[in-house]
């Protein structure tokens, strides 16, 4: 189906079902309860982030997972995409089609330039070069191109780029909603589905992102299964040998770099569509680091891993930052009083504002003990239960 093998098509179908049902599955607790406030993730803002960061990490995986080139600068392409989309909103109006097209194109161009320079070296050199180039883009967005008093203020610096009433918006008609929209359907519009005590939110922006996620996932499967993907894997396993056979690998790696940059641009454009402003902090190299973290958490070089990793990261970031001392006290109320206080003091540094610490530790644990990420973890657990079955090489076997 759709040019996919049966197994891949099943995977695509599973993801599609996940995308469609996410607003229901992620809202397991009835509205108004304490559990719902803590664990329900079925609200549009978070689900949009799941989908958008899923796209971003799928793109990153095409580069890092297939070729083994570890880029530490992908957030810069995300930021460039966001800026491009907001500029389209400012100049043309709130239609998202030109915005997304331009953001993909702009990020593609940027990644072509960055890739051209940094792909001259491999390994550590490549990581450092992408890091430096992305940090240069961040610096320019933050200060040089963002000085409101200068005549080339492209990014509006610290304030962030946003749409003002005085902007031209030449294509804006009076009937259009005053928010990014697709043919008049505002990204913010949502339908509430009340079933019993449950309140499910179906949001236009989320479903659009979900659609793009499916598209991105489909393209990524096709790349993984194509001769081009095979060539990229060959680069990962032994680039030197490829060079000795007289084959120039750089066009292939550059292509992979540009594709993943365009994925990042699409994600950036979508972020701007959900919330029409763009800031330079999106481009900082620690944001690039977070992309790497997400892809490692999920499982690098696998098809489904990036989506899992992005979802896992965003979900736990959200939950951990919500837990505070009073919540902890509530949870640990069954313990004796003195012991409860000790436990709360012990857990305190890891939750609330300290969520970064927990994710950092988790990330280190995954790198050390589970280099294949969640997917490998799932496979190991699966093996425990199905030890007697013949081990057929699974679809998600990491490309080594």
């Amino acid at each position: 189906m759709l040019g996919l093998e049966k197994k891949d098509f099943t995977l695509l179908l599973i993801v599609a079902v996940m995308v469609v049902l996410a607003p229901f599955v992620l809202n397991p607790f009835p509205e108004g309860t304490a559990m719902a406030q803590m664990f329900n993730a079925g609200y549009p803002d978070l689900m949009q982030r799941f989908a958008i960061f899923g796209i971003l990490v799928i793109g990153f995986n095409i580069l890092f997972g297939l070729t083994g080139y570890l880029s530490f600068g992908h957030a810069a392409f995300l930021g460039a995409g966001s800026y491009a989309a907001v500029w389209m909103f400012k100049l043309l109006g709130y239609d998202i089609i030109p915005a997304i097209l331009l953001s993909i194109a702009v990020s593609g161009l940027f990644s072509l330039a960055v890739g051209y320079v940094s792909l001259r070296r491999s390994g550590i050199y490549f990581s450092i070069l992408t890091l430096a180039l992305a940090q240069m883009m961040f610096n320019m967005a933050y200060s040089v191109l963002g000085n409101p008093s200068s005549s080339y203020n492209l990014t509006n610096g610290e304030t962030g780029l946003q749409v003002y009433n005085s902007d031209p918006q030449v294509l804006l008609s009076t009937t259009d909603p005053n928010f990014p929209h697709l043919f008049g359907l505002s990204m913010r519009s949502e339908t509430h589905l009340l079933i019993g005590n449950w309140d499910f939110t179906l949001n236009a922006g989320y479903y659009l992102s979900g659609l793009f996620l499916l598209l991105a996932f489909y393209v990524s499967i096709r790349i993984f299964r194509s001769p081009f993907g095979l060539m990229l894997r060959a680069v990962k396993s032994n680039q030197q040998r490829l060079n000795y056979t007289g084959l120039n690998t750089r066009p292939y790696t550059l292509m992979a770099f540009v594709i993943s940059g365009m994925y990042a641009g699409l994600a950036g454009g979508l972020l701007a569509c959900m919330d029409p402003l763009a800031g330079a902090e999106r481009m900082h190299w620690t944001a690039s680091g977070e992309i790497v973290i997400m892809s490692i958490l999920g499982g690098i070089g696998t098809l489904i891993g990036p989506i899992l990793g992005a979802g896992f990261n965003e979900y736990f970031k959200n939950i951990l930052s919500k837990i505070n001392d009073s919540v902890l006290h509530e949870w640990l109320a069954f313990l004796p009083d003195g012991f409860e206080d000790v436990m709360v003091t012990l857990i305190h540094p890891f939750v609330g504002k300290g969520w970064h610490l927990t994710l950092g530790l988790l990330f280190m644990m995954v790198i050390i003990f589970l280099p294949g990420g969640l997917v490998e973890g799932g496979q190991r657990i699966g093996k425990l239960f199905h030890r007697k079955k013949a081990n057929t090489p699974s679809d998600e076997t990491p490309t080594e």
Partner: protein
Amino acid sequence: MDAIILQILNGLDKGSAYALIALGLTLIFGTLGVVNFAHGALFVIGAFCAVTLNRIFSVSFETIDPTKVDFLGNPATIKTTYLEHWFGVGPAAWMTDWSVPLAILLAIPVMLLVGVIMERGLIKHFYKRPHADQILVTFGLAIVLQEIIKFFYGANPIQTAPPDVFIGTMDLGVWLGFEANAIAYPYWRMVYFLFSTVIIGGVFAFLQFTTFGMVVRAGMADRETVGLLGIDIDKRFTITFAIAATVAGLAGVMYTPITPPTYDIGVELLVLSFVVVVVGGMGSLPGAVLAGFLLGIVESFASMNEVKNILPGIDQIIVYLMAIIVILVRPRGLMGRKGVMED
């Protein structure tokens, strides 16, 4: 002329910091073959050693002063720091004043310990893993270390003053025969520059003139052969790692009066230090030092108003531009050796 000298001087102190961090990075890379993304965090740990010592010095206890009462009639209390209690008022004041230089004494054992624990506890297990894994695990460690510091010290910059003697600026111009105030340069920056020269000189002398250093250099050139000669090279490399950590930590200690440290100061410095290492040539210690000072000075020239008027914002990107040019023209960096990271 005086403007040029001033910019060179301005570049020196930043260049010193780059050079010190890049030196440590190169030392680790040359010996262990690991790119240490946690090196910026080591700098931060050093900086917070200075902050910690300052706080330790001001720990005090209260005593009741029987001769005085406060306005409510209660006996007044006096706060005495333990330092005054133990050493007397005069030495205590001197020690508080000199807390930043004294922090070096605290930082050296702390950083050596941190270095040994890091290498033995974590990085040792990653020699056989791909480079990407090494980068990622040290990156994760950097996040963890930073967040621990943030938990204890908060997210705001913490002012730490240099000794009173070094507050203010020196009028270098007069010495060199220019008008007064033509070249004003803060004392502490001069101290920092001299300090870093001493440290860099010390590291080079250690590697060049001691037997230990000779073995380490031999190990950098051919690890396997040195191991075959019956020398426990791993142990020496662990110590080298600890020394590199100490160099970064000391750079951090002395940097606190120049920029009040925050938990994330290392993040920015790390990227620049990587650029320095790449420009200098990976694996080359003199290259790292040279490139550090070079980039510091170039950056300070780029931030002159005369330059900025022609090319606005050049000061923000000049370092990266230099890196790109060097990579395109001399892929091995200024003083890179053949065969390092060529695969």
